[in-house]
């Protein structure tokens, strides 16, 4: 279990993360979602013990994580910089990772490099943004760390490379279950892989639940304005738009089949609200 208690991260007078409490059972894939500047990277840095929280505690399997060698050996945090000297060559990066991590799988790393078509003799500085991200994926997956944290490890990768990343992530997780926490803005294409999602907004925890609960949690009701208004009365409205006499309202509510039938007989139509739409409504509504 990873336990965060009242965790805050501040930079001078800027508050990046504020009072976050989270219990994260191990062995699951988590998606961390949040808008730009919502505090994702600060939270992940604290989770990975790259940064001591300004206040609060983080415990991994009951142990204080910060500067704890036993916990750090089990933690792999991949961020966009790759935390390397730009003049290092890719094969040196991998060799170094192998020294650091008892669980490193060199054969798997080589297979992934091949998959992403990266020449190990290239210097980090000569890699494109997408190739750099792919090296991050290689470092993150081949480490097989019990706690693997991937912070937007897809920047610059094209659709084919991202699809390969997601495929490898799932297959390797199935073969070697571990805790994986990844932040992303590309919610739609990866949400099916997340067992749970964590949404933060302006440094605060907005939601932590099963991804599948979020899917189908909301509904869009469209029809004649008066009928829509009557039907949605009493439910939480996440968004609405009108065009002429037609109104479309997105609700934080899941009507049962009988209610849908009642609505349809009143001339209403019902549409789904996906994980990404739900995220947009939940984090965009208050701005």
């Amino acid at each position, binding site marked *: 279990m990873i336990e965060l208690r009242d965790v805050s991260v501040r930079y001078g007078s800027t508050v990046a993360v504020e009072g976050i409490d989270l219990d994260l059972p191990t062995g*699951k*894939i988590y998606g961390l979602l949040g808008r730009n500047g919502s505090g994702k990277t600060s939270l992940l840095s604290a989770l990975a013990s790259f940064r001591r929280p300004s206040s609060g505690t983080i415990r991994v399997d009951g142990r204080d994580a910060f500067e704890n060698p036993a916990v750090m050996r089990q933690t792999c945090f991949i961020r966009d910089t790759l935390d390397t000297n730009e003049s290092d060559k890719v094969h040196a990066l991998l060799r170094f990772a192998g020294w650091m991590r008892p669980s490193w799988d060199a054969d798997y790393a080589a297979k992934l490099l091949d998959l992403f078509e990266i020449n190990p003799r290239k210097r980090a500085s000569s890699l494109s943004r997408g190739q750099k991200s792919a090296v991050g994926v290689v470092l993150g997956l081949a480490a097989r760390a019990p706690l693997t944290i991937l912070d937007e490890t897809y920047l610059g990768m094209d659709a084919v490379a991202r699809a390969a990343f*997601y*495929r490898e992530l*799932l*297959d390797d997780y*199935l073969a070697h279950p571990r805790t994986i926490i990844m932040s992303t803005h590309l919610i739609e294409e990866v949400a*099916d*892989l*997340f*067992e749970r999602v964590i949404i933060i907004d302006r440094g605060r925890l907005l939601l932590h639940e099963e*991804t*599948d*609960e979020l*899917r*189908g949690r909301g509904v869009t009701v469209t029809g004649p304005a008066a009928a829509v208004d009557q039907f949605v009365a009493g439910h939480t409205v996440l968004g609405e738009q009108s065009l002429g006499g037609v109104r479309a309202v997105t609700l934080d509510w899941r009507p049962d*089949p009988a209610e849908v*039938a009642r609505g*349809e*007989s009143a001339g209403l139509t019902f549409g*789904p*609200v*996906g*994980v990404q*739409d739900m995220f947009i409504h939940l984090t965009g509504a208050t701005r």
Partner: protein
Amino acid sequence: MAFDDRSPIYLQIADGIKNDVLSGALKEDEQVMSTNQYAAFYRINPATAAKGFAQLVDEGVLYKKRGIGMFVSPDAREKLRRERRERFFTEVVDPMLAEAKRIGIEVDEIVRHLGGAR
């Protein structure tokens, strides 16, 4: 099967397997995929797949053999047919009649059309 955003994936998994049982694509006492195989095949989280299978065990559509896997219950097809039959008129026929009314098709016309399907 492809999943959509209309409902939780675990319910869609359960519905998909029920359809396979009803159609006979999955036979009684036949072993179904493991949750890991299912997750790998459909590119979803294995916990989501497991929840779909657990739902089917709860409903008696599947049964578990410890250490071996999950199988289609001997009476699953008959039971699902009974359930679907009960819902057929409210979920299939009534909406059709409502649509017919909206666009001005008389019930007699529908009956004539159905007569041709006999």
